[in-house]
């Protein structure tokens, strides 16, 4: 349609565009500039060229943080996709009981990360928590997985899986509505076992959904911060020092704006690469962006009721 006045569209877009540019576009540019300076928020700026990046690269520091974050994300993706799919298959049944279980699983997605993190800290506390009490009853030595450098990261991933599986399950339930019942029945008539029906009918039809869930949770969990800040503060022995927490430490604990900005730039580039991967996966595995679960038409989702 033609606008009534040429300036109308811009007036309607102005507040949104201005806020988005000021708070999402400009900050990336500012970080890029600040990354070439050394600044502690108090003394004047000092131009240092690539020194911030070199310092981060020294001893493979930044590579370690990136790989650690990627390891965490991979665990979360594997866990949420596998559990989310299994639960969707299990709970895609009529009846109040199944609806109740679906709602229970999804509820963790709605609760604050703070509540979830604190709750699991207590459950997993080897001394005064539930895990400690259970171990003592079994006669085993109390251990705290969060205090063990080998187990801390997988434990954080486990908590994230508990929180995010409900989301994956909902997307898979929506995807299952797109698997024609007739096709499954035809396969059954031809003598295909339940396993074969899943392997050769359901799985291929769910491939786009799986790709969507996997890439979305990859990008989301790459930004993890709350679980680290609340449950481990990056410890023990830096075993849970994830990317965003590292940025947070650089600016608020070390007061090093330059390092924090350099980290932000690298973080943004990595996210950009992951998002590119995300788009590629949607395009190639789905034959077009149309296969992405659409915001409208969601009424096909089996509700929780």
């Amino acid at each position, binding site marked *: *349609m*033609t*606008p009534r006045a040429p300036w*109308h*569209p*811009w007036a*309607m*877009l102005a*507040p*949104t*565009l201005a*806020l*988005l540019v000021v*708070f999402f*576009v400009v*900050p*990336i540019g*500012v*970080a890029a500039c*600040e990354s070439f300076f050394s600044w502690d928020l108090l003394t004047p700026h000092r131009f240092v060229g690539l020194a911030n990046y070199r310092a981060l690269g020294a001893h493979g520091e930044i590579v370690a943080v990136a790989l650690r974050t990627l390891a965490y994300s991979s665990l979360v993706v594997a866990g949420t996709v596998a559990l989310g799919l299994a639960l969707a298959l*299990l709970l895609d049944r009529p009846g109040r*009981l*199944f609806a*109740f279980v679906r709602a229970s*699983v*999804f*509820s963790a997605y709605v609760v*604050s990360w*703070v*509540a979830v993190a*604190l*709750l*699991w800290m*207590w459950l997993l506390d080897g*001394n*005064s928590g*539930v895990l400690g009490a259970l171990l003592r009853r079994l006669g085993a030595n109390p251990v705290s997985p969060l205090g063990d450098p080998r187990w801390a990261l997988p434990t954080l991933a486990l908590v994230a899986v*508990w929180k995010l599986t409900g*989301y994956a399950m*909902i997307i898979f339930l*929506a995807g299952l509505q797109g698997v024609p019942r007739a096709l*499954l*029945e035809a396969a059954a008539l031809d003598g295909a076992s339940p396993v074969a029906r899943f392997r050769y009918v359901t799985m291929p039809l769910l491939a786009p959904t799986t790709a969507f869930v996997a890439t979305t949770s990859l990008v989301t969990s790459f930004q993890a911060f709350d679980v680290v*800040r*609340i449950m481990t503060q990056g410890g023990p022995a830096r075993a849970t020092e994830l990317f*965003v927490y590292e940025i*947070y430490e650089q*600016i608020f604990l070390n007061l090093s704006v330059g390092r924090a900005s350099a980290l*932000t730039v690298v*973080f943004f580039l990595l*996210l*950009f690469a992951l998002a590119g991967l995300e788009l590629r996966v949607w395009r190639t595995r789905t034959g077009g962006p149309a296969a992405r*679960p*659409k*915001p*409208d038409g*969601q009424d096909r*989702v089996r509700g*929780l*009721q």
Partner: protein
Amino acid sequence: MKAGRPLSWFLLALACVAAATWLLPYAWMVASSFKTLPEIVAHPTAPFPERLDTGAYREVFRAIPVVRYMLVTIVMASAIAVAQIALALPAGYALAKLHFAGTRFAFGVVLACLLVPAQATFVSVFLLFAELRLVDTMTALVLPFAASALGTFLVRQALLGVPDEIIEAARMDGAGEWTIIYRILGPMIKPTLVSLLLVSFVFHYNDYFWPLVMTTGDRVRTLPLGVALLREQGTGVRWHIVMAGNVVLSAPVLALFAVAQRHLVRAAGGGQS
């Protein structure tokens, strides 16, 4: 294709295991919030407290100004949710319905911002607010989220489904653009707007990251920060107090979820917040 009897019993049992995995932690949280300190040390796993002791809750209200934090949190989350909708409607209308040079550019900016999370902007935005002396203010909590790229995108998608004839008819009847946007189109895409409002409210009510980095003191501290502080203040064993704080923090969202599940689930299917 009826499943055999043993199989359906097996599936039912599995469903119960799933329910227990997600509900037992809450049950433990609530049960222990009513325990006393000696009791939680001696029997952390006991499913029920010996008697309903509200000492932990009284301690929570003593340790942090719960009501004030809750009010700050609700004001912040409501302001963000309402602003996002108020701004997304005209922007989405311009992108979906009006032909003008620059549509591609404007839509491109919105799509690009979908890729930028707050975790990649907070260092620069903190420096900006520090410069303007706005750290520790409601402005720093609300303004950066007053416009939502995702919200604008979803409103645009919803408005694409509204026929042009409706807008033409409204214009013929002499309705201004303002009236068309808020009075006519808004109600037509109500389901999208309600989902957006709820998801945005819940997300920002729960948010820990942004209030943490944008506040330095107590002035506009939000409830998630306050509850997280309960643990940092206390020694390791006072878990019943932390769990009481947890109950206070999560009860409102769980209640909202119980009332408005359908909208929240629909929105989860549409994209993450």
